[in-house]
């Protein structure tokens, strides 16, 4: 195991975080918030440790960096970022706040968007910006960012990308991995700018527009308003955010093709089409339920509510425009199930991802068919492509693991005294990087009331979920003691 290389790269990451912390420092200072020094201290601390690590473990000549190192580095990078990101909260709110700070920071970087803050609008601007910025940094992936800006990381970069990127198969868009990472971040930045600009043109204040842009494109969920996006109470703003949540939940490889003037793949992509179908069907079903059982009078209003909420949950953004915890039973049950859909592979969304669901459902059908014809060979197709057997197996295992971790999480949370709806929805919301659950952790509530141990458990689940299980779980199977 190349520990020197890993520590060196973590040092680099700390320096990058220092740079990121400069933004809220400046904003806080300009707005004369008393929180600016919290960011300054956090930045300085990260900077000093970062330089020390970087100098001490100055890059060795030969740089053996394989799969093992990739997994360890990616997991360590995410823990480091989450801990460093918690520093400003600790400096600002006090040391007794440390669990909440780590929870909030991890929820930020993993784009979960579950918050322990009760009075969001009362918080200083630096803090609010840092929450959204951590979303934005984590959304496309800190490792992808690292590969884009640090040429040294390109060695073994594909393993790194695979360990961090969402979806069952990681593909390069360009021959060079650094170019791929740059292309991804370019598209990401472009989409973010598009949201911010559109919101600003609709009359949203520039600070709110930028923060919501970060949160939307990262499919994350922190808002600058107590009532989330509902706080704007503007249908146009909601629709803009719906459209961009859908785009952020689509495979970025498709956006890449689109920007190259090839819109065909986007509309022919089987996963994207099913993804849209799921959102559309959920919208229709929930709108109907709201009108029949929920006492919503106008069709337009029902569709407005249901389209926003279905999209926010499927894309794992977790914004809300209403307290859906008060909605009729069917809508709540459906929203709970939608937490397990997730966006498309290669997007910024969390949870299972549509393509995995497709593969597992097709596998199920094929296994049934095989009972009749044991010798038949049925390849699993996504669009026109046949999925290799190995990928199918790993997807099935992923699903099993995902459900197992979700179930275990819910069970442990209930042991901590949470009711069943709260425990299981919180477990799914953390593992799927969604944000709001139901019950005590519903959209109008927050995670502050949970016991400390529960918060730490959920923090861990967020990172496991963000790195799509394997990258974290494989650490237990690396064979540490063997050379």
């Amino acid at each position, binding site marked *: 195991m190349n520990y020197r290389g890993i520590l060196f790269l973590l040092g680099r990451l700390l320096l990058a975080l220092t740079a990121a912390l400069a933004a809220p420092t400046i904003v806080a200072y300009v707005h004369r918030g008393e929180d600016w020094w919290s960011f300054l201290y956090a930045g300085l601390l990260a900077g000093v440790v970062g330089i020390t690590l970087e100098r001490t473990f100055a890059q060795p000549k030969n740089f053996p960096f394989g799969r093992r190192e990739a997994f360890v580095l990616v997991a360590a990078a995410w823990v480091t970022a989450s801990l460093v990101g918690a520093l400003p909260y600790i400096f600002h709110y006090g040391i007794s706040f440390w669990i909440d700070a780590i929870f909030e920071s991890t929820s930020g970087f993993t784009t979960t968007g579950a918050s322990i803050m009760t009075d969001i609008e009362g918080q200083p601007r630096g803090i609010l910006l840092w929450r959204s910025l951590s979303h934005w940094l984590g959304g496309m992936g800190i490792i992808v960012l690292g590969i884009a800006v640090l040429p040294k990381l390109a060695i073994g970069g594909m393993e790194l990308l695979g360990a961090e990127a969402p979806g069952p198969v990681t593909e390069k868009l360009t021959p060079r991995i650094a170019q791929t990472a740059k292309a991804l971040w370019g598209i990401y930045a472009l989409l973010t700018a598009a949201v911010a600009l559109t919101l600003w043109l609709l009359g949203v204040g520039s600070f709110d527009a930028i923060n919501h842009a970060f949160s939307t494109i990262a499919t994350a969920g922190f808002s600058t308003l107590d009532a989330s996006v509902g706080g704007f109470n503007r249908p146009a703003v909601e629709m803009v955010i719906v459209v961009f949540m859908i785009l952020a939940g689509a495979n970025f490889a498709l956006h890449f093709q689109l920007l190259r003037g090839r819109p065909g793949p986007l509309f022919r992509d089987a996963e994207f089409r099913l993804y849209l179908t799921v959102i559309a069907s959920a919208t229709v079903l929930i709108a109907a339920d709201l009108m029949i059982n929920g006492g919503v009078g106008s069709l337009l209003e029902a569709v407005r509510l249901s389209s926003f909420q279905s999209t926010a949950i499927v894309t794992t953004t977790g914004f809300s425009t209403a307290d859906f915890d008060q909605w009729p039973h069917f809508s709540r049950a459906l929203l709970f199930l939608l937490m397990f859909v997730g966006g498309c592979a290669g997007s910024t969304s969390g949870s299972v991802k549509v393509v995995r669901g497709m593969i597992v459902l097709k596998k199920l059908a094929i296994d049934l068919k095989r009972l009749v*014809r*044991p*010798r*038949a*060979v*049925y*390849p699993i*197709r996504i669009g*026109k492509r*046949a999925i290799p*057997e190995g990928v199918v197996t790993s997807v099935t295992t992923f699903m099993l693991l995902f459900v197992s971790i979700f179930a275990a999480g819910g069970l442990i949370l209930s042991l901590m005294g949470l009711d069943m709806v709260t425990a299981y929805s919180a477990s799914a919301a953390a593992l799927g990087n969604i944000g709001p659950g139901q019950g005590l952790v519903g959209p109008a509530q927050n995670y502050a009331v949970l016991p400390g141990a529960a918060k730490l458990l959920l923090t861990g689940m967020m990172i496991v979920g963000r790195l799509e299980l394997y990258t974290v779980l494989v650490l237990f199977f690396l064979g540490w003691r063997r050379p």
Partner: protein
Amino acid sequence: MRIVIIGAGEVGFHIASELEREGHDLVIIEQNEARVSELQTRLDVLAVTGDGCDPTILQQNGVGSADLLFAVSNNDPANMLAALTARRLGVGRCVARLGSDHHGENPLITEDPGIVPLYPERLVAEEIFGLTRVPGASRAHFFADGRLVLLAARPSRKAAIYKKPLKELEGPEGWILSGIRRTDGMVIPRGDSVLRKGDLLYAVGRTESVPEYLASIGVESQPTRRVVIAGGGQVGYWLSKLLVGREVAVTIIQRSEQRAFDLAAEIPGALVLRGDATDPAVLREARVGDADYFVASTQDDEANILSSLLARELGCRNDVALYHRPEFANVLQAVRIDLPISPRLMVAGHILKMVHGREVLGMDLVAGGVAEVVEFEVRPRARALKGALIELDFPRSAIASAIIRGDELHMPGGDFRFQVGDRVLVFTLTDSLAALEKLFRER
């Protein structure tokens, strides 16, 4: 003619022996030394050991002065390269054997009219596909974009067609009985010929009325709905693609796991089973019992024969078996495989067509080569324009079976008059070829 053949595998060797018999001068370039020395002893040809893509070797052996070159090794890119090189060295026409259509679509090939791609496996697959479109017949070959068909069929012994001269029989419109195969040879029918039980009939007619024609000779024909193919090699691959395109249900039995997966991935409409086609359990799982055709298309002749017999035992209606070794022809006949097919004879027909520059079809129909189906074009001022068909000096051992005139098809009667540009399909015994040439050529 001076002809170069690159690659003396199964196809190359067969082409060589056919062409040598016809008296052409052959140069054969082959990499395997043992094959070369075998060729030298068995055929009167110049056989050279070497790489057919190597321009030096090509030049040394005088390829530049050759009229025709066949690149028929079993390696697509090597065949392409050899053909392209030979073209540069001045060979007028090069035939490149290809297995995959990806290579055939290569602009290097499509943009050079002097390079003719040859897909042996696809030819075989097309032939078998043709058969499945005319169930009940034992052979079929399509002309004029599939609108015209030559078929071979054995009439039912109970049909009311025996004992009367042909002119007294009422057959369906638009069909011309062109040849009768008997144990003692091939007969070109005349109005006073009488059919015997056990005759194999060759008839030309419109594709859409095949069922009517077959019914008139007492042969039942149900449309083909399901085909089971043993062996997912190139022949099996092409055949399944053609069948799936026609909405016929296809089941492929393939032994190798990887190939089975690839086939299933490439042909979405087909059901692929992994297993050995000589295992009755596998055949049962493929439901050969209610298949219209069972096609044994593996490279292994013994396995093909065995699996065909098993399939028939399990109730399959028609069994097609590929055989590669000529000496098995009699074995297949003895065990009564319905439709034995020899890929080499089939491919040889196409090769000869390229050499002669005229349509020679159905080589495999009439084993022994006593008869051929030849397409002639009526040239200006040809003798054939002198009068009605009955007044012409048409050879007695040949029959004009159909005329393709632009988009129209004509089934000629005695009063038919040819026009310049007509393409005439003639079924003929080989000894009349010269006379026919004279009839249709410019005077």
